[in-house]
């Protein structure tokens, strides 16, 4: 077993515990945005896709890397935009945004 593997395994195990600890405190109403947000975060595979495309030596590697970049970008961008759109909705009922609406209704 190499030192590198040991180091990565350490990071893996610590991250697993952090992931569990953080999530266990989330109220159920935020589960959908949370799922969507974590969906965006695993889009970090884009970094991996860039690395393999950037190192590609053969045409096949190039094609596969290119497709990976497209798919990963979809994941990352789509994930963040959808999550933001969901959370935008939660924000919109503070008293300040409600007031002008009432005035509008009165007109």
């Amino acid at each position, binding site marked *: 077993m190499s030192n590198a593997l040991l180091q990565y395994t350490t990071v893996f195990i610590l991250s697993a515990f952090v992931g569990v600890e953080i999530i266990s405190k989330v*109220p159920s109403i935020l589960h959908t945005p949370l799922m*969507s*947000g974590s969906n965006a975060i695993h889009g970090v*595979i884009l970094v991996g896709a860039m690395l393999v495309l950037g190192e590609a030596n053969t045409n096949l590697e190039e094609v596969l*890397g290119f497709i990976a970049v497209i798919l990963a970008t*979809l994941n990352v961008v789509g994930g963040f935009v959808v999550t933001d759109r969901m959370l935008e909705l939660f924000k919109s009922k503070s008293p300040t945004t409600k007031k002008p609406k009432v005035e509008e209704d009165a007109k």
Partner: protein
Amino acid sequence: MSRGTLIDIAYLIAATTFIVALKFLGSPKRARLGNLIAAAGMTLAVVATFFHQNAQGRGLLHIPLMLLGMAIGVVVAVPAARFMQITAMPQLVAIFNGVGGGAAALVSITEFMHIKAGHPATYVTLEVLLGVLIGTVSFSGSAIAYAKLQELMTGRPITYPGQQVINAIFALAALALIVAILVTSSTVLLWALFAVAFILGIIFVLPIGGADVPVLISLLNSFTGLAVAASGFTLGSNLLIVAGTLVGASGILLTRMMSKAMGRSLPNILFSAFGSVITATGGAGGSDRPVRSGTPEDIGVMLAYSSKVIIIPGYGLAVAQGQQALRELAEILESRGVEVEYAIHPVAGRMPGHMNVLLAEANVPYEKLKEMDEINSDIATADIALVVGANDTVNPAAKNEPTSPIYGMPIINADQAENVVFLKRSMRPGFAGIENELLYDPKTILLFGDAKDSLTKLVSVVKGV
């Protein structure tokens, strides 16, 4: 400081933003900020990656192609995410998750081809294979989940004789291929593994249907996280390991919470083809028993002269796009001095929290939304429980009938309110396909029709009272 160290610091910052973001996503006030922080961290990581140099000090090749790929991704993803109906959110999450899994699988495959000549250590190959297997299952599984939710195919579980055996054979085939590739390092066999994993994802998801699909998406989300972590091991990237593992761990926890909210264990959801069993029993229930149905006038007057109404919304409301009409009805009732609250079942809509998002979109105040446990202690004081497009989440069979497939699922105790009003399209059973005794209860009154139409009629009746 060397360029490599600077890039690693950028990655460290990005990993930290992801942890902070997940924490912030747990609070309604900071959730949006959390998402933006993660997006900023992601941008930093991607920009830093452009400066990457390999061990020989050579920068990344194919930068224009990379930029083209990113541009294509952005051009497709942004409009899809911006303009799709908010009711279609579960599908959208499914598809964005699936492509992430596909990307992870491709990264692992490509990296394998790249390092194969150097005879990598066995554990490196194993990481590659796990990345390919998990990522591909997540990809094809998410595609099927998308098709089910988008109603491109039946949402019901698909079962056939010998299904478990066939699934087991494919799982064993995948395992055998992994062993064979570890021994031979064959690229051909790697593609065979890719194909087997692709089929495995499909046949794994086919028997899961109905209300279980969101739980499945959450599980596949977690899978993608693990596939990304596996790619991180192969590429030697701490960032990918941290982010992938965070998602993998949290996703499994979230999946468990969701299945718990439905009163069922995860293996039960994944392997028991729930819906098919129920269609069999549900069909036998006598649907010609008498029910009490009312006119909008009856029910409007009832609502207007009550003192406390608890609204229990379900997916039928979302399908009919009736959230605005519902909010309007609630506001008119409140202006008459009626106390109105919303009882949100954890799995109302199609995902936990989905209903909150839908109601928030209709400007329903956040404080009015009560979670199930909170409202259940209070529901006996209500004059009317107004059930709008929900069914299974108020089915007393979950408490009273040990033989019922949903027995043990926590429900909103609508049956404890003095009166129960159902706005329903028809007598057809809900998502789970189970007969609901509450519909036949003498204190229950039904208003048939599309939820939005019914609500609009009720609004005009209450206005006129």
